[in-house]
């Protein structure tokens, strides 16, 4: 099997991508959205003319709302970011934006989140990430409890977790690029996307490992690497087909779906893609590599 023969190349590609992602995360950083740190976000659309930012800034500054960020959106709209606002402050902000009601605008959405709600959500998100990870590790351990030769079952689990990290780190790394160049912020849906990738990508790895396990039992080949190769041959079409269908729907969600779930779907698309990639090109080569290392040690 081609992939097993050149396993070090594929493992190398994955390692390179992970390193690039980690660098990107550290260099560009992740912009935390108001869901987690609190603040206000308002989107307005003017009916006729959008006043320039330099016209609006002095008026808004006089309101004492702290730093207020105006981002043009569409042809006639602004997205306004600030600290969380009381209803009175919100009203005065709208008044300032509409130049005291002279320039008619419609507020399409307004979202103000107090810092305590943000802190609570952050904590919830962390707990959820820990729990999902633990549950999936337990599930992997359970799924592979019966395999022991020639690679012991905990190594399958360990490799599944390594490829899981791979599947999450690379989309997050790509997200930091969006975050840096397009100003996309981390919101609740980002966390949901990460957790969903955890759930979806591990399943692919498990199906392939399942196949390896079955072929080991049936003794389809004498060499372990050959068994893995055969298993890959048998299952990679299925892996690609199933992720392709999910990626197809995700892409239709990215291009045609609501704006609020656009980056969420994009994030999942990357997760799905690298999840499938890793189950074929990372997890199985790693398995063979580990087995070879083990063998060499015995010699």
């Amino acid at each position, binding site marked *: 099997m081609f992939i097993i023969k050149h396993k070090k190349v594929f493992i190398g590609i994955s390692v390179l991508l992970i390193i690039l992602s980690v660098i990107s995360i550290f260099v560009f950083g992740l912009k935390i959205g108001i869901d987690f740190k609190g603040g206000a976000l308002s989107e307005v659309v003017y009916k006729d003319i959008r006043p320039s930012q330099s016209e609006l800034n002095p008026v808004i500054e006089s309101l004492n709302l702290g730093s207020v960020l105006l981002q043009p959106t569409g042809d006639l709209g602004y997205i306004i970011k600030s600290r969380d606002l009381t209803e009175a402050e919100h009203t005065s902000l709208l008044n300032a934006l509409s130049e005291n009601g002279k320039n008619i605008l419609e507020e399409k959405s307004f*979202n103000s989140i107090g810092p305590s709600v943000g802190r609570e959500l952050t904590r919830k998100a962390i*707990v*959820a990430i820990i729990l999902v990870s633990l549950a999936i590790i337990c599930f992997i351990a359970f799924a592979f409890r019966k395999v022991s030769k020639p690679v012991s079952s905990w190594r399958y689990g360990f490799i599944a977790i390594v490829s899981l990290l791979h599947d999450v780190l690379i989309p997050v790394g790509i997200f930091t690029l969006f975050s840096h160049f397009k100003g996309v912020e981390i919101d609740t849906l980002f966390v*949901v996307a990460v957790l969903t990738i955890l759930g979806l990508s591990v399943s692919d790895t498990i199906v392939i490992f399942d196949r390896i396990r079955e072929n080991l039992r049936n003794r389809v080949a004498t060499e372990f690497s050959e068994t893995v190769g055969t298993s890959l041959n048998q299952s990679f079409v299925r892996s690609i087909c199933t992720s392709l*269908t999910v990626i*197809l729907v995700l*892409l239709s969600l990215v291009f045609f*779906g609501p704006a609020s779930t656009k980056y969420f779907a994009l994030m999942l698309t990357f997760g799905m893609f690298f999840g499938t990639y890793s189950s074929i090109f990372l997890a199985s080569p790693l398995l063979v590599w580990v087995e070879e290392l083990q063998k060499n040690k015995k010699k």
Partner: protein
Amino acid sequence: MWKKRILALIILLLGAGIAFFVFKSEPKLNKNFENQSSFFKHHPFRLGLDLSGGSHLIYKADVSGVPAGQVSDSMNALRDVIERRVNLFGVSEPVVQIQEGGFISGNSDEKLIVDLPGVTDVEKATAMIGQTPLLEFKIERSKDEPQTLTVGKDGVAKVDLSQQYVSTELTGRYLKKAVLEFDQNTREPKVGLQFDDTGSKLFADITKNNVGKIVAIYLDGAPISTPVVREEITGGEAQISGNFTPIEAKQLVGRLNSGALPVPISLLSKQTIGASLGDNALFAGMKAAFIGFLFIALFLILWYRLPGLIAVLSLCIYVVIILTLFKLLPVTLTAAGIAGFIISLGIAVDANVLIFERLKEEMRAGRTVTDSVSTGFSRAWFSIRDSNTSSIITAIILFWFGTSLIKGFALTLGMGVLISMLSAITISRIFLYAINFVGESKIARFLFSSGLSK
């Protein structure tokens, strides 16, 4: 053989029937919606705020003054008060929920979440929610004072009822709380009032001066109870006994408690989505679902041929089943929820693909088409189960810990994965069995093959 075909036919008919229900019960699809029976009318999709437009408010309740054991009682009372006030807006299907503080949320704040579909004027909404209704205690006007009598044009004399009572200083501001009590002898329900210190003093004065007379309790200018004072009451506690049913008494308690909010609240965060934005999001979500479905159908038929067509058919049935469940349970659909549903479409195919790939292998191993179908199904089941378990685990945890936004996604995704598993192994199987009359000809083998092979 015929049995299986009849079964397949029944499933098709059932699927069509459910699809008919989905269509009939949707105002946007059914032009004749207004004339439908109430069964159809009562089951449109329930849309979340981000799709219908509206306001989402989170209040913090300050329960520091409430004894530990009574926190949940006073939170329930608070919810009832707010719910009643919200109902005054005439909002359709407002949702008022308590979110308890605890370990997961990391602080002990008790929160109240208020969803107001269709309300985008937050200022007005928050003003009405935060406003305290006026609770007043009034006493009978002394008989010596003159009362104005108005004589209408038709010659009927009218006495303004409100003139019969005069206000006292005692208002809901001095009420500590009202509780539901039962008379120890007669088991008759009563409403107990507890005043604070100032209130107790005022109440003692009022009762002392009005023994045998009526002290009327007014809420927002309308009398809600007119008990007769039997004796001076000094303890700051009073009972209203009347011919209450337990339900009436309970309602009165609720209303009295709503005279003053049981605990002070402050607005923590608010979110408003304009109706146009919600409509756009809903339309985009439906469009994405439709196009996604087309992509999958095209792929399945081109790649898997006849079994692919069957997978599309069983996917259609899966779609109508899940949409019906969304309507019947009901599941509140949000943008994220629709995303979850769309992703579940992709995952639903997964089980079919697993089965078809197995089927192909069995055929390659030299089995007949019929044999391949049955072994393909039985061998694929374990993979299907294992590959879906992790998604279900994730969905459950997300549902457990999520905010309403995440819950919507977790619920649709989790339901989708679970139901698609069942639909793939039952519905696809029945259809495949029903059509295996094509036998072992070359055409049959072509139809059951996949990909680029001939």
